[in-house]
C-alpha cells in the first residue's frame, strides 16, 4: 500500500527539472513584472502571490540538486534543504492562487514560462500529498467514476435523451468510422446541455458524421490540474483508446480550456507517442467549416453589444485566438474587444483546477474583480465564451458581485444563427 510522502514529492520535483527550468531560474532577475501580470496580485495587492515566488520550493530543489554552488551551499550549511512544511505552506501559492493562466509567462522580460514551472511544481506537490482535497476528490472521481464531477454515462445518456427530444436530432453513439469524436466536459453535461444540442445541430448542418463514445465522453483531465502525470496519462489514454477504437479522424475537444490543453497538447506527451488522429477544439472545427463555406447563417445578426472572453488554455496556451473572432464576425454586429484580450486576456479566476478547491473560493471571488471591471468598462450586454468552466466561474462571480450579464457559449450561439434546414 503506497501513499504520498515528502520523499516522493521531492523525487518528483527532481525528476521534472529540465533545461528550460534551469534557464528560467538562472534568468529571473526579480523584476516583479510577473506580479503585475497576475490577477491574484493585482486584485489583492499581496506580494506573496507574485508568480515567481510560487516557485521557491522548485527553485530550491534545482539549486541544491543540480548546481555545484547550491550543493556547496548545502554542504557548508549555508542553505537549508527543502522541508515538507515548506511544501505545505506553498500549497496556497501553487494551487489556490494559480490558474495556470500563463499571463505571467507573456510579460517576463527574460522570457520565463512560469506556468510551465508551476505545472512541474504541482507534480511534486501531488506526489508529496500536498494537493488540495477538492482536487484530490475530483481526480479520484475522474479515475473511479469517469468524470471529476462524479457523472457516469447514465447521466450523459439522460441528457442525450433530453437533447434528442428537444431538437429532434439523433445523437450518434459509439459509431465506428465517424469523422469526429465529440467529447464533453462534466460541466457541460450538467449545466450546459445546450452545447450538445448545438453540436448536433451544426454537424447536421454541415453534413458531417460524428459520434459520442460511451467509454470516453469526459474531456477534462484532473490529472493535469492536480499535477499527477500518471493519472493524467490514464485519463488521456481512455480517450485515445476510444478514438482509435472508433477510428475517428478527429477528436473534438469541447468548450473547456483544460480539456483542450490536456488532450491536444499534453496528451501525446503523456502517452509518449504521436496520435493517429487529430485533436481540435470545437471552435477550430467550426472555423474550418466557416472557412469552407459550410456554415450558412440565417442573416439575423446579434445586435447586442457583446464581447468574447478568451479562455486561457484555448487562447494564450492553446493557440485558438482568431477562430472565435472569425465566427463572431459571422453572426454579431456589435462585437467589441476587451482592453486585454486574445493572448493577453485575463483569466476568470477559476482555471487550473482552482474552481475545484473549496478553500480558494473566497480568493477566487475576490480576484474576479478584474473580469468584472473589464466587463463593466466595456458596458456590454452579452458575454460570449468558449469554456464551460469559465462560464460557471463568471456566473458565480456575477452573482457574488450582483451583476447581471447573460453569458453564452460560442458554439451554442453559432448554432442559433444557422439556417434551418
Amino acid at each position, binding site marked *: 500500500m503506497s501513499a504520498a510522502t515528502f520523499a516522493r514529492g521531492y523525487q518528483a520535483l527532481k525528476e521534472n*527539472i*529540465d*533545461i*528550460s527550468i*534551469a*534557464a*528560467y531560474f*538562472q*534568468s*529571473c*532577475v*526579480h*523584476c*516583479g*513584472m510577473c*506580479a*503585475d*501580470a497576475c490577477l491574484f*496580485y*493585482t486584485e489583492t*495587492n499581496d*506580494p*506573496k502571490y*507574485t508568480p*515567481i*515566488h510560487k516557485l521557491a520550493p522548485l527553485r530550491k530543489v534545482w539549486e541544491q540538486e*543540480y*548546481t*555545484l*554552488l547550491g550543493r556547496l551551499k548545502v554542504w557548508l550549511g549555508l542553505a537549508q534543504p527543502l522541508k515538507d512544511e515548506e511544501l505545505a505552506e506553498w500549497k496556497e501559492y501553487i494551487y489556490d492562487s494559480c490558474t495556470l493562466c500563463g499571463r505571467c*509567462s*507573456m*510579460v*517576463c*522580460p*527574460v*522570457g*520565463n*514560462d512560469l506556468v*510551465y514551472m508551476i505545472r512541474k511544481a504541482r507534480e511534486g506537490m501531488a506526489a508529496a500529498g500536498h494537493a488540495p482535497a477538492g482536487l484530490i476528490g475530483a481526480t479520484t472521481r475522474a479515475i473511479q467514476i469517469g468524470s471529476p464531477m462524479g457523472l457516469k454515462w447514465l447521466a450523459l445518456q439522460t441528457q442525450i435523451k433530453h437533447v434528442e427530444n428537444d431538437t429532434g436530432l439523433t445523437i450518434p453513439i459509439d459509431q465506428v468510422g465517424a469523422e469526429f469524436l465529440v467529447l464533453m466536459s462534466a460541466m457541460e453535461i450538467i449545466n450546459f446541455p445546450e452545447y450538445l444540442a448545438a453540436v448536433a445541430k451544426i454537424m447536421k448542418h454541415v453534413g458531417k458524421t460524428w459520434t459520442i463514445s460511451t467509454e470516453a465522453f469526459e474531456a477534462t483531465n484532473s490529472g493535469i490540474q492536480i499535477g499527477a502525470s500518471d493519472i493524467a496519462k490514464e485519463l488521456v489514454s481512455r480517450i485515445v483508446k476510444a478514438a482509435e477504437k472508433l477510428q475517428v479522424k478527429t477528436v473534438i475537444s469541447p468548450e473547456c480550456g483544460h480539456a483542450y490543453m490536456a488532450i*491536444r*497538447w*499534453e*496528451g*501525446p*506527451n503523456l*502517452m*509518449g*507517442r*504521436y*496520435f493517429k488522429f487529430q*485533436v481540435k477544439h470545437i471552435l477550430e472545427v467550426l472555423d474550418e467549416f466557416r472557412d469552407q463555406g459550410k456554415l450558412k447563417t440565417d442573416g439575423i445578426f446579434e445586435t447586442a453589444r457583446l464581447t468574447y472572453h478568451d479562455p486561457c488554455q484555448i*487562447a*494564450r*496556451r492553446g*493557440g485558438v*485566438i482568431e477562430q472565435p473572432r472569425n465566427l463572431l464576425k459571422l453572426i454579431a454586429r456589435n462585437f467589441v474587444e476587451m*482592453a486585454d484580450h486574445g*493572448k*493577453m486576456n485575463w483569466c476568470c479566476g477559476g482555471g487550473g483546477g482552482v474552481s475545484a478547491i473549496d478553500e480558494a473560493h473566497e480568493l477566487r471571488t475576490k480576484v474576479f474583480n478584474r473580469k468584472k471591471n473589464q466587463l463593466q468598462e466595456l458596458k456590454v450586454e452579452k458575454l460570449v465564451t468558449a469554456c464551460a468552466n469559465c462560464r460557471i466561474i463568471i456566473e458565480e462571480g456575477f452573482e457574488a458581485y450582483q451583476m447581471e450579464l447573460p453569458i453564452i457559449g460560442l458554439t451554442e450561439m453559432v448554432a442559433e444563427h444557422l439556417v434551418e434546414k
Partner: protein
Amino acid sequence: MNYTEFLLWVRGPAFHFATAILVLGLTLRFLEMLFLGSPRQYAAVRSNGIAGGIRTVISRFAPPEPGVFQRSWFIIVAGYLFHLGFFISFFLFAPHIILLKSLLGVSWPGLPAPVINIITIISLFAMITLLINRWYYPVLRFLSDFEDYLSWTLAFLPLFTGYLAFHHIWLPYPLMLALHILSVEILMIVLPFTKLIHTFTFIIARWTNGARAAQKGVQV
C-alpha cells in the same frame, strides 16, 4: 602596494583570473543545465518552433503591449534605460572597444565621450531609481534577497566607478581606473553564479518559451 602596482594587478593577474572564472563559470553552468535534458514534443505542432523561438528572443527586447506597459511602466522604462545605458557605455566607449578588440578580434566605431557620459548618467540614475523602487514597491521588497542587492551593487559599481574615473572625481585617475576595472572583474567573477547570468541565459529562457508557444501557434 602603490596605485600603479594595483592598476597593473587589476589589468594583469586579476583580469586573467576574472576572465577565467567567468569563462569557467559560464561553461560549467551551461553544461550543468544542458545535461538536464528537455522533454520531447509528441503533439502535432502548428510550427516547429524555431522561428518562434528566435522571434521571442528578439521580440522581448521590444516594448511590451500597452496593457502590460501601463501596469509595469516604471520597471520597464528604468530597466530599459539602465540596460541600454549599461550596454552602450560598455560596447560603444572607445577604450572598451579596444579592450574587446583585443579579446575578440573585432572592432566597431564608438560614440563620442560626452555622449557616453550622458548615457552613463542616465543609466546610473535609472539604477538608483530601480534600487529605490526595490525598496518601496511591495512586490520587489518582498521578493528581494541578498543576491538582488549584491547584483545591483555589482552592476552599479562599474558604471559608477567608470563615471568617477572619467571625471577624476574623488581619487586619482589610475586608482579610480583600477577600481573601475576591479569592479568589472568582481562582476565577471560573480556573474556566472548569480542572477547576473541572465545576461546569457535569457536567450535560452526566451527561446524555450517562444518555441513552445510557437508550436501551439501562439506568438509570445
